[in-house]
């Protein structure tokens, strides 16, 4: 992209990130606000972090959310990528196929939530984190597939033919020719799926079953909404983001900044 003027690019990035991070700064600041009220700043304090450490419910819910998001992302990314590759290879584009692939994105989540709960009830399945994971995979899969397909539209299939002509099996071709090229898209899709899952409330609420063990963070926060967003929740969000930045820095150190597949 050498043709793009650098100052303009930096300006765009600066403005976008400012927009993205202004509300975040607000919530981080509020987590350190002594008074705990959004309307009055009474001083810097870390007491809410202490409160958070004592609040077993929130911490448990956060842990559950992480489990659900990780598990559903892994499954969805795998299935979704395979699906995307398979769809793009097929020469015949079935209308029916397209419908099914896009459906999870389009179906209103309340419909999916109630449908899944009714379905699981009908089959007398015990509900818990596993049912949430299964449900989250449904829509995550579709989003991963969409992202990967967008990349595949500009993929040069002649490399695949060349690889096959040279005697590589399909599996090897996929693994060593297609996948490396796709990896930025797969990673983007995985990030997308993880993000969607972490924030998802409705489907999680309905498919979690009744027990306390399967409450996810969005469910917990939504239930606590009677009293607005407490500073402990802001503290939790700050920690989550802080930890993520830490993880990223660590993984950068380990990979020495190489994009996967390079």
């Amino acid at each position: 992209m050498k043709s793009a003027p650098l100052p303009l690019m930096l300006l765009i990035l600066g403005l976008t990130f400012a927009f993205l991070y202004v509300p975040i700064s607000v919530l981080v600041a509020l987590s350190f606000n002594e008074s705990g009220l959004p309307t009055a700043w009474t001083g810097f304090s870390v007491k809410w972090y202490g409160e958070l450490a004592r609040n077993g419910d929130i911490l448990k819910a956060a842990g559950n959310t992480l489990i659900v998001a990780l598990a559903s992302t892994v499954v969805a990314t795998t299935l979704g990528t395979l699906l995307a590759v398979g769809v793009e290879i097929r020469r015949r584009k079935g209308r029916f196929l397209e419908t099914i692939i896009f459906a999870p994105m389009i179906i209103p989540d309340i419909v999916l939530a109630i449908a899944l709960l009714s379905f699981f009830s009908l089959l007398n399945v015990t509900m818990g984190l596993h049912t949430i994971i299964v449900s989250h995979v449904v829509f995550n899969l579709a989003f991963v597939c969409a992202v990967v397909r967008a990349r595949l539209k500009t993929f040069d299939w002649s490399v695949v033919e060349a690889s096959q002509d040279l005697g590589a099996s399909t599996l090897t071709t996929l693994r060593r020719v297609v996948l490396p090229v796709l990896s930025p898209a797969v990673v983007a899709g995985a990030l997308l799926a993880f993000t969607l899952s972490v924030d998802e409330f409705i489907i999680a609420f309905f498919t979690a079953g009744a027990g306390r063990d399967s409450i996810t963070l969005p469910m917990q926060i939504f239930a606590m909404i009677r009293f607005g967003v407490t500073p402990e929740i802001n503290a939790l969000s700050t920690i989550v983001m802080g930890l993520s930045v830490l993880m990223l820095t660590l993984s950068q150190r380990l990979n020495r900044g190489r994009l996967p597949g390079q």
Partner: protein
Amino acid sequence: MIRQKFITPALLTTGLALGAGTAMAEDLVVSNWDGYMAPDAIDAFNQETGHDAELVLHATNEEIMGKLIASKGKGYDVVFVSSPFAEVLHNLGLAEELDHSRLPNLDNLYDAATQLEHDTGNQFSVPYAWGTTGLCYRSDLTDAPQSWMALLQPSDELAGKTTMLATDRWLLAAGQLAKGYSVNETDPEKMAEVRDLLIEAKDTLLAYDDTTFYAKLVSGEAEMVHAWDGWCNYGIAENSDIKYVIPEEGSDLWVDTMVILKASENKDAAYDFVNYILGAETHRWAAENILYKVPNKAAMDGLDPSLIETFPNMGLSPDEMMQYEQLRDVGEAQRAYSRTVSEIKAAD
């Protein structure tokens, strides 16, 4: 390779999830609103009775109802829902027919609380808290309102500084009461008038809000809000200029109830729990903590008088409350209600 990097974590997390999902089943699952019981109520119950109850939360009646209907009540033992929803549970056959011999503490209730319209004789629900809906306002910023119209057609200074409850039935009730109609009115012409009144009210409204309206009062963003009496007490606790009043046209009598699910597999524990909550001490402790009136005579008689001084609406007697109408499930007309609310909310 990415796929290899993912496999091990995947196996681990799936293993964890399955483990978590099949953890030992609790003795009793109770679903309630956040902060609607004394904070140690469940622990105290567990200690006293040796049961192992756990509390899960729901933010609105609607979502817990949706879950119960879709799963036919499985998984939950006791739920706290408002009376129209308890009626629905009963009509759909999801509520347990109560065996009063297992609920001796029912005797603690006021007579009036055992003859509530939605469930005379407490056949499927036990009242937990009750109260009125009215106007909560900042007495230092605005005058005491007399009528519902002060909210629906506010003065110029008040315009843009009011909120109304977002929940369908109470949203409509404000209009119904202002017009002198029943809160269970089904006549289409009258409802059309109510609808038009409420659409007009949108022009001067700040927002529909049924969870953070008292915070708006405390911050001054709003000066008069449509509120349930107990909620208003939270505001009063933070700012003594806040006051609650029932407009002259009246209010509705709302009742939050406990329902045992027919599909419950822990009926004994469920009955013990409901009975425990109805105990004089426990129920009074609940009232003092959540600042709502409870329909328990034994509890209210022993209520700390200073509480009534600070929160006058807690002193409202059952006789006074019984003059107000209860919200009932309106059967067929529910569709019309739903449509009316859509019309109001969709209007520009």
